[in-house]
């Protein structure tokens, strides 16, 4: 294939990929051939440039006009250059595209582009005319001919999306800049409303979300990313702390709407139920345990996420009209076939991944006294059962569950808590803040160590033998593979050991089902990535039981996606990707070549929340992180650059 110009991005000419570009972003971008099956992509236009895939089908003048019209329709109207400047630009381009333009109009367009890109308040304005000017520079003849000959340009077909890096990073695609904007205006209920468009568990997310958004935050390139998580917590706390609780009304179920069953009242199940209710379906949830919330309740300790917070948020769906059947375990009390027989037209399986993974080392079977998988330990702690059996504990693993186990053990009064992890500190998958807080609380870290043998006495755990590890070559995940160092074995005496090295799905509940769901070789429920359809008609699955143990927000996103799929399935009989998801796919392809630089003035430090002092907090399960004060929330919201950006795709239909 010969090398041709694909387009302009970041002021760089992007050419079609050469063979040596195989692994680069350009290949990913060039592979973007179809927007939807049978609907080819002709061109892509965005905040920093454009790409043309099929010259013959692209009308650059019309595309520029279409892009400007979207920008004008999205401009928030606060600052003058974007509000009026993009209007002027849109009018100029309309005039040109209708064949009424003059040479001066092209000059005016450049002039106004300068004001808009230099003078605007937020990134939407800064990037508004970038691609239009690129088009003007790269295709001068077409614009010139249009104005001199008065050519009329018919309107083509375009798909557009307004998004932002933080929005795209969020699995649920919450409109983050918008709710931050509302906080800035002091309109907290409206801000919460924006969050609850998609996320019914705002206060939960505001406390324990792993913050994909903050890692994508462009402010992070200047100084620190915006404290998005705590801003979300701030607005949701306003409602939690209100003297008079306002709960949503019971939703009006559409008459004759088909019944939907949700199995599992965890974050995925609750979110799916919430959105299905909003769409007018009657929903019943079947929950194996005695409380709703799933891992948010059983897996996360109270000092990070108080039980009351989860409870009051789950109440939202019950007050909307969801029926939750507690202590109903799939496989024991009912089967999917039963549900279908009872008249449920669609089923969402969100049973999570609750089984702990063993260490596969001698001494583990049969389990000695004091040995408990980490996730079961957390479950017992959260259920208020007695688990303490001594004065020292070893936790194996480097993820967030391991951190939760360590810090919970400490709070139970266990004096010595050791953490054993086979790689180095940098490689720990746990949230860096969690690691920091755990160390501050006095957890003893043993890095680059791995347990080799449990030492027991009369069926009771007395210690664990570990071996030192050396980091070798990077493996498939890019992390260096640990290799045991011969003869470096040492013993950590302990009364308890909690492995927290992963979780499995209890697929036994699916085994005896009349309807058989396919299970992958990883032991997860097999479901389509995009539609969440399983091998069984009308049955959808999502959350940890499909992805393996993941995060709260990913589970919630699966719930949201399931609700859309179920809605489509029940209305039209088949499931297809939404426009929004298709555009996100284009966005990711474009981001593969995007080299972002933030041309703004930094220097405003992030507002950090207060933590309770270590001495005070290690003795109880009360919440460690305190929320932002209204003043700090305002200053933090002020730091948002509002990196809204517009993506346009020219297609056939």
């Amino acid at each position, binding site marked *: 294939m010969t090398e041709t110009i694909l387009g302009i991005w970041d002021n760089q000419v992007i050419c079609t990929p050469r063979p040596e570009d195989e692994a680069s972003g350009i290949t990913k971008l060039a592979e973007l051939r179809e927007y939807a099956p049978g609907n080819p992509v002709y061109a892509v236009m965005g905040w920093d440039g454009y790409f043309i895939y099929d010259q013959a089908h692209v009308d650059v003048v019309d595309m520029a006009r279409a892009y400007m019209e979207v920008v*004008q*329709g*999205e*401009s*928030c*109207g*606060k*600052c*003058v*250059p974007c*509000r*009026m*400047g*993009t*209007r*002027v630009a849109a*009018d100029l381009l309309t005039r040109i595209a209708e064949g009424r333009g003059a040479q001066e109009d092209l000059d*005016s367009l450049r*002039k*106004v582009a*300068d*004001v808009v890109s*230099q*003078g*605007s*308040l937020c990134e939407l304005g*800064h990037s508004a005319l970038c691609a239009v000017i690129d088009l003007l520079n790269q295709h001068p003849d077409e614009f010139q001919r249009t104005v001199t000959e008065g050519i009329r340009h018919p309107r083509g077909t375009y798909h557009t999306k307004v998004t932002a890096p933080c929005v795209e990073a969020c699995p649920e695609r919450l409109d983050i800049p918008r709710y931050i904007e509302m906080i800035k*205006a*002091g*309109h907290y*209920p*409206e801000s919460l409303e924006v969050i609850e468009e998609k996320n019914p568990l705002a206060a939960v997310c505001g406390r324990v979300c792993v913050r994909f958004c903050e890692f994508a935050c462009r402010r992070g390139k200047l100084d620190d990313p915006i404290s998005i998580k705590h801003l979300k917590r701030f607005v949701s706390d306003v409602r939690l702390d209100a003297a008079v609780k*306002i709960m949503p009304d019971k939703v009006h179920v559409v008459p004759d709407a088909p019944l939907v069953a949700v199995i599992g009242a965890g974050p995925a199940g609750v979110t799916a139920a919430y959105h299905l209710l909003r769409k007018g379906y009657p929903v019943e949830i079947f929950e194996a345990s005695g409380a709703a919330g799933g891992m948010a309740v059983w897996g996360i300790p109270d000092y990070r996420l108080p039980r009351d917070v989860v409870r009051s948020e789950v109440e939202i769906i019950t007050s909307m009209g969801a029926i939750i059947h507690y202590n109903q375990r799939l496989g024991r009390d009912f089967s999917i076939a039963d549900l279908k027989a009872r008249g449920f037209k669609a089923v969402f399986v969100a049973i999570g991944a609750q089984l702990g993974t063993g260490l596969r080392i001698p001494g583990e079977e049969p389990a000695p006294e004091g040995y408990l998988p980490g996730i079961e330990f957390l479950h017992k702690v959260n259920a208020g059962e007695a688990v303490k059996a001594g004065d020292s504990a070893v936790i194996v693993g480097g993820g967030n569950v391991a951190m939760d186990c360590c810090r919970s053990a400490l709070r139970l009064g266990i004096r010595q808590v050791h953490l054993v992890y086979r790689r180095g500190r940098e490689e720990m998958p746990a949230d860096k803040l969690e690691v920091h807080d755990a160390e501050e609380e006095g957890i003893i870290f043993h890095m680059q160590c791995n347990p080799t043998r449990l030492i027991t006495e009369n069926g009771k755990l007395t210690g664990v033998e570990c071996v030192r590890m050396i980091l070798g070559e990077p493996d498939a995940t890019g992390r260096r593979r640990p290799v045991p160092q011969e003869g470096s074995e040492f013993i950590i005496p302990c009364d308890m050991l909690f492995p927290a090295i992963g979780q499995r799905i209890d697929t036994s509940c699916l085994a005896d089902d009349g309807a058989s769901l396919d299970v992958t070789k990883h032991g997860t429920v097999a479901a389509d990535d995009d539609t969440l359809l399983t091998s069984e008609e009308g049955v959808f699955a999502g959350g940890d039981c499909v992805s393996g143990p993941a995060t709260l927000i990913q589970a919630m996103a699966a719930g949201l996606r399931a609700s859309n799929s179920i809605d489509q399935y029940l209305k039209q009989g088949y499931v297809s990707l939404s426009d929004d998801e298709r555009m996100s796919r284009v966005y990711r392809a474009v981001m593969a070549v995007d080299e972002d630089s933030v*041309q*703004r*003035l930094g*220097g*405003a430090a992030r507002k950090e929340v207060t933590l309770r002092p270590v001495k005070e907090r290690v003795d109880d399960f009360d919440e460690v992180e305190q929320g932002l004060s209204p*003043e700090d929330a305002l*200053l933090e919201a002020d730091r948002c650059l509002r990196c809204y950006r517009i993506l346009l795709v020219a297609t056939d239909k």
Partner: protein
Amino acid sequence: MVTLRTKELRRIHLTLDGKPVLARSGQTILDVARENDVYIPTLCYSDKLRPLGTCRMCLVEIEGTAMPVTSCTTPVSEGMVVHTDTANLDNLRRENLKLILTRHPYNCPSCDINGACELQDLVYRYDISHQDMHAYQIKPADFGETPWATPLITYHPRRCILCGRCVSACTEIAEVGVLAYKGRGSDTIIASTEPNEFGRECISCGECLASCPVDALVEANGQPKGKAWETKKVKTICTYCGTGCELILNVSGNKVTHVSPSRGGVNQGALCAKGRFGYDFINHKDRLRSPMIRRDGYWEEVNWDVALDYVADKFAAIKQREGADALAGLSSARCTNEENYLFQKLFRGVLGTNNVDHCARL
């Protein structure tokens, strides 16, 4: 002066238009420029509000930063080199003004605040002519009747430059927060938010009106304000309650045309609905201008000496006939503390009764 909050006050050295300047941490570039008599045009800035950064007139350049920044929102930092007056900035500000005027009507003579308008001052300063206007021709948006949060105020969307001062004043001064930007792009207006379950409701304080730089918000029942240069401004104290808010009465001819906020006083310029809108009694035809005594069923105008003698005689007669406790005094909340003190002194010490009360207790 609204400054950004900081932990400690530090000295900061910066260069402003080539001159070394000393500033305090927490000051914005605009604060420092004004302290040093460097002119930076502003439109949305008000020293009573947090800086907004929406009008984009106060853009300045900082060496090492690619984009111009708004001086009203940018805090100074050590070693900053700021340029407030370059050809690029001048161009940006001029073009920006032209963009504002694509929506704002160009008929100053018929506007109430002709001569006291911040936008007009800038148009004059930057010498924007009709010729300039034709560069950016757009179809003027056709705004219909747009109700404001209170019927006391009329909103003119065409005049509105969407600086957002009214929105901030509503949130920050009145702490009500009923106003918000509504709509998108060039059709954006300011409007009250939908009444919601959280019960935010306009209290008709008129802080929005007082903060408007271009008279897009006018009193619905107001009279013509008179030319700015012919209006006398009289600083006085509001008579409605004992708080003692300072306000300015604008007098044209011998008529109070409107109330505007003063820059000081206990209220720091803030007023309530009564203080701001309830001035029509001053020129009202039914207003009592001298004491009156009813004689033979008819009210008769008398002077103060006659009136006071009449009251004193009656008081003395009642006291002699029925005793001092037959008398009682009711004072007004509109009086100051000192006046109320003297009033009770009169009743207790001179007339000899403890029957004294005050209307605010009723």
